[in-house]
């Protein structure tokens, strides 16, 4: 354990670990030392000079090494001639800190006065006004009266886009470098910098496109003035008009804790709407950060295209859609029709649902399926969720805390296998990077270069298709095998880079076996994590939904299909085959998707922002989300719709309270045993202390008062016998001569509905592309930037060629959700696109 030292801050004695900075010790003692440049998540730089305090240290006798005592027997203190910065000085035994002395207060006042000489004082039109550290500290420490002539103020540009997402007001900037340091230290994307010097010093973007980082929004939270604002919230509302409600981000399996800020406003026809998404502290999940997709891609629920009334097609009309368009119907009529169809189908009912739905929704869907003996299918192309229930990371796992014995942590190894975390689960990228910087051995195995490679101890490249073999070798042989086997703690994150269902299932099994064989299961910071495509895929697996290899066959073989939270026809995962009779289809969704257009019954569901529920993250943490805005009139939560259909079928399922559904689930499913909503809402003190009134210390991140969530135990941790399946044999696809092996990869900004409804992020999506090795491109006679026709699986599309020298030849990387459907490795060809005929 770290040595503890006792010091006195403003007369209050406190004992803290050796090496802690005075500013943090003061915070623990309940004294807020004012800061601008200091941030508890970054290295101190001592440049703003706001945290000036008096520090006295006991005078030591050089010969004895003991403190010199005064006549009263108290240690004699030596105060330096200068004020010292509380943010750069570590605590020491017997130290006395005065933050409120005349001298200290004069120092703090002088810094505020200096800062204000250059500040425009435009609080009335500033987005930060009301939650601004400079404003607060001016009220607390400022001189109250200006000695600086207002008309001698330096005037600078007030709306400088650093990129499409973040704007800089150069006048307001106080050059604290928090944003620059955040990008350098926390993210490892040094895309911001300073230009010029002295009073002319200014923040600039060094990247093309501007501020090229998926974490850019966080800089606006930690900016201590209104210099950095998001294009989304800029001039959007005053902070004091905003209500806040706790939620969970649904963009990826990390499960970042967020806060929705809402306001009722005239410009939205008097509705209560979400004005911004802010991170909410959960040090074991997202700390105080969120990615830009989570921050900006929330507009989908506000869309005017939302469904608000059930629609039905008369019986038998589905065969001839054109003649029998669907019509508006009452909930009762729609549910009756659905129930009837499901009862008729019995075991030939297929329920297809995605990880976009909450645990409660999925539980009710599964219960309905089981009642008739139907089939519950997870809409996903990634397997292995059954294994994470057995050997998933244990209760108490905290990726960011992993490290090495040298850095005061436990020797740990993290393997990232077939995943580009920066694109697939950005906050896990931050967490894994942090673990590596804490000394954890990071092994990144991927067929191409990813951003995480820079922080890895070992980078492993393998050919697409060799995933299983790679895991089996790297966890057992050589230096890498030693690092994995001998580590006290080991975690494997596996993704679906280049993989479909069959191969990802095989990969997951190989990873699970490697962990189990080396005893890295059933303990905190040990086990398997799936980098799932959707937020609640893990929850769906826990509840009993599994993906199927041949979705089309399952669909074609069904008598009735109940689809919730998925658009397989829009995604190209399902096709209507001519001539065959189509199963009876019930679809519940937010939008009239391609799938909904084909349905016999369409039921309008509520967005997760309009109701409460829980999600299970990739780390198997169950977390609550709360209602943020009133539900769109005419919609209902998915679990309630399912319950009402069930009632039509004579089955009673809870349909009014999400928390009761959860309790029923907890009684039924050993993974969730013992959990309930109050338990999920519990919080513990977290460090650093953020939020509250002193926004200057940790930024405008919200303090977590609504629940840190609870990690599920797994079979290994419960002491149950772990029996893992054999690794299924997968035959790698070997493309024919003159053909390419096309493999799917995931991009954060894709053409999914959440990004395409975000005007801001849509600008970052870019064009559909195929990435080739330069040699492959040469072989096929295409060049970078050229338009080509990419054909796979019977479909083709015009895409742009990009080069990636880190992949093997003969491979074509095709991004998921960017136009051309791709569910797994497939044969493909490219040829130069025909130029449009000149008129």
């Amino acid at each position, binding site marked *: 354990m770290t040595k503890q030292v006792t010091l006195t801050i403003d007369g209050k004695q406190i004992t803290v670990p050796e090496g802690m900075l005075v500013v943090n010790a003061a915070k623990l003692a309940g004294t807020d030392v004012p800061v601008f440049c200091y941030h508890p998540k970054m290295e101190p730089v001592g*440049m703003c000079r706001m945290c000036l305090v008096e520090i006295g240290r006991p005078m030591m006798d050089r010969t004895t090494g003991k403190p010199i005592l005064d006549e009263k027997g108290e240690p004699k203190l030596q105060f330096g001639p200068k004020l010292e910065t509380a943010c750069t000085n570590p605590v020491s035994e017997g130290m006395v800190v005065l933050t409120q002395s005349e001298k200290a207060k004069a120092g703090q006042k002088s810094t505020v006065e200096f800062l204000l000489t250059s500040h425009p004082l435009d609080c009335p039109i500033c987005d930060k006004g009301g939650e601004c550290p400079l404003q607060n500290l001016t009220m607390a420490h400022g001189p109250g009266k200006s000695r600086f002539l207002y008309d001698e103020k330096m005037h600078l540009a007030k709306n400088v886009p650093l990129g499409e997402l973040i704007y800089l007001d150069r006048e307001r900037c106080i050059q604290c470098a928090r944003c620059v340091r955040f990008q350098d230290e926390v993210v490892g994307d040094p895309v911001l910098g*300073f230009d010029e010097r*002295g009073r002319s010093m200014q923040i600039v973007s060094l990247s093309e496109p501007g501020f090229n980082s998926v974490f850019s929004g966080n800089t606006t939270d930690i900016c201590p003035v209104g210099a950095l604002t998001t294009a989304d919230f800029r001039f959007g509302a005053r902070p004091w008009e905003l209500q806040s409600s706790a939620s969970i981000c649904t963009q990826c399996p990390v499960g970042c804790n967020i806060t929705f800020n809402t306001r009722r406003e005239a410009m939205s026809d008097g509705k209560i709407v979400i004005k911004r998404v802010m991170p909410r502290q959960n040090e074991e999940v997202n700390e105080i950060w969120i990615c830009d997709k989570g921050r900006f891609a929330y507009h989908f629920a506000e869309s005017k295209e939302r469904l608000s009334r059930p629609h039905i097609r008369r019986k038998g009309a589905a065969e001839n859609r054109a003649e029998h368009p669907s019509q508006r119907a009452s909930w009762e009529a729609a549910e009756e029709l659905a129930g009837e169809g499901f009862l008729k189908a019995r075991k030939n009912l297929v329920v297809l649902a995605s990880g976009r739905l909450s645990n409660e929704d999925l539980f009710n869907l599964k219960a309905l399926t089981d009642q008739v003996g139907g089939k519950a299918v997870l809409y996903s192309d990634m397997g292995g969720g059954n294994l994470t229930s057995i050997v998933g990371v244990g209760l108490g796992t905290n990726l960011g805390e992993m490290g090495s014995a040298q850095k005061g942590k436990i020797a740990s190894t993290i393997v990232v296998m077939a995943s580009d975390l920066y694109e697939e689960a950005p906050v896990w990228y931050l967490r894994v990077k942090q673990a590596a910087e804490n000394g954890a051995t990071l092994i990144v195995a991927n067929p191409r270069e990813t951003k995480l490679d820079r922080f890895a101890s070992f980078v492993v490249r393998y050919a697409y298709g060799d995933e299983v073999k790679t895991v089996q070798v790297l966890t057992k042989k050589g230096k890498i095998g030693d690092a994995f086997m001998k580590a006290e703690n080991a975690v494997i994150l596996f993704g679906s880079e280049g993989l479909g269902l069959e191969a990802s299932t095989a990969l997951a099994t190989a990873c699970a076996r490697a962990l189990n064989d080396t005893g890295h299961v059933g303990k905190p910071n040990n086990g398997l994590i799936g980098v799932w495509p959707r937020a609640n895929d893990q929850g769906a697996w826990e509840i009993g939904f599994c993906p199927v290899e041949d979705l089309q066959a399952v669909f074609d073989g069904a008598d009735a299909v109940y689809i919730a939270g998925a658009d397989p026809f829009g995604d190209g995962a399902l096709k209507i085959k001519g001539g065959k009779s189509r199963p009876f289809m019930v679809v519940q969704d937010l939008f009239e998707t391609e799938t909904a257009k084909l349905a016999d019954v369409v039921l309008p569901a509520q967005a997760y922002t309009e109701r409460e529920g829980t999600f299970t993250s990739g780390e198997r943490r169950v977390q609550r989300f709360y209602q943020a805005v009133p539900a769109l009139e005419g919609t209902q939560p998915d679990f309630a719709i399912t319950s009402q259909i069930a009632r039509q079928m004579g089955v009673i399922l809870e349909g009014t309270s999400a928390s009761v559904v959860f309790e029923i689930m907890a009684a039924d499913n050993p993974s969730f045993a013992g959990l309930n909503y109050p338990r999920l809402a519990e919080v513990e003190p977290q460090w650093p202390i953020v939020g509250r009134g002193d926004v200057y210390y940790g930024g405008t991140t919200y303090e977590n008062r609504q629940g840190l969530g609870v990690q599920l135990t797994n079979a290994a941790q419960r002491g149950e016998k772990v029996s893992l399946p054999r690794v299924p044999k997968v035959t790698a696809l070997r493309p024919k001569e003159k053909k390419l092996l096309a493999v799917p990869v995931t991009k954060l900004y894709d053409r999914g509905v959440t990004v395409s409804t975000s005007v801001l992020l849509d600008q970052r999506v870019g064009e559909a592309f195929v990435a080739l090795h330069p040699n492959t491109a040469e072989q096929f006679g295409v060049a970078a930037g050229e338009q080509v026709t990419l054909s796979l699986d019977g479909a083709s599309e015009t895409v742009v060629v990009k080069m990636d020298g880190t992949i093997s030849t003969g491979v074509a990387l095709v991004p998921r959700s960017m136009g051309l459907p791709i569910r797994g490795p497939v044969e493909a060809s490219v040829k130069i696109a025909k130029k449009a005929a000149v008129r």
Partner: protein
Amino acid sequence: MAYVLLRHREIPELHKLEVYKRNGGFEAFKKAVTQMKPNEVTDLVKSSGLRGRGGAAFPTGVKWSFIDNKIWPHYVVANADESEPGTFKDREIMENNPLQFLEGVAIASYAVGAKSAYIYLRGEFWKIAAFLDEKIAELEEAGYLGEGLFGTDTSLHIYTHLGAGAYICGEETAMLESIEGKRGQPRIRPPFPAVHGLYGKPTVVNNVETLTNLPMIVANGSDWYKTMGTPDSAGVKIFSLSGRVRKPDNYELPFGTTFRQLIYGYGGGVQEGRPVKAIMPAGASSSFIIADDRVLDTPMDYASVRALGADLGSASVIVIDDTVSIDWVISKTVHFFKHESCGKCTPCREGTYWMSNIVERLEGAHPAQADVDLLLSVARQMQNKCLCPLGEFSTMAVVTGIERFPQDFQKAGEPDTARLPDDLKQAVSHSV
């Protein structure tokens, strides 16, 4: 007395290797490498009493002994950024006696176990950098630099590095940042470079003049060195004399030479025979000393000048006569520091900008007494709060100028509120 540093003034073509060798060149380095242990070199320099010539006057040998021997590699960096207005000594050394300087770099590197040494030159010294590069190449050719020196396993490579002309890069930690390819901005100290320096490794940073002393100390011994100067300030110093003197120049003199000897004996006195009004002994960073007979007879060593309420610093003696008003002088220094402030810390970035605004008002049509008071207040408010010495330096001339020469700051006018809207005139208060 024979020159110790400006030996080129009596030995023609000393910059040529064969001339330098003929005059004992590289014997000292050879002696150190072949006959002395590194710590013996450090001890010798300690006992010579050599103190840093860049301005801080820290004992050189003591600085070397702080280097952390648990962390390797070590680096030596020669500070050739010479940017202080009024300082022009390092330039003369490097242009005319470069080999003695390079030998000094080599000796220091040997003493602290550095296998790489960097010479950081201000951007304007690009010609000197090219000249030093030539000399370094010659020395490598001749076997005085490179691998396996003098048949031992000692090796050393010296590299020049050009800055882009920022004054702040003369501050040692800003210089290290600049060499690393980052913005030239000072780091928080501690940790000091001896523990966490270039690329995070233990580093010794010495001034050009300091290093140029080393070959002579190693060759002739510390007792010889201490025969010059005073007990507190051993050896010789190059005084860069400028201002209103007849013969501004570099003068290599033993410490303890009086201001009068320097200004009247060597500098030929003040132009037009006018009296000395004020002395800035350390360039633009200096405090003003009121020049009277007692001051003129004060020996120039670190302690004696400190007793006058100033620092000898790099000994860039600027002489001001009675034709010059001190408020004009500080308008120059304040402008300089505003221009050179790196912007990293608030008091310096904002304070120099604010002071420069006030000084402009004082130079304008409506100089007001209230502005003088405000200027003094702002300068005092900056003191002891800045991240690095630059901000502190910027206040020296302002505070001592106003305090010691109040007659030059008698301003009759009222605050210029004419340009302000009526409702703001009342609001503007220059009260201190």
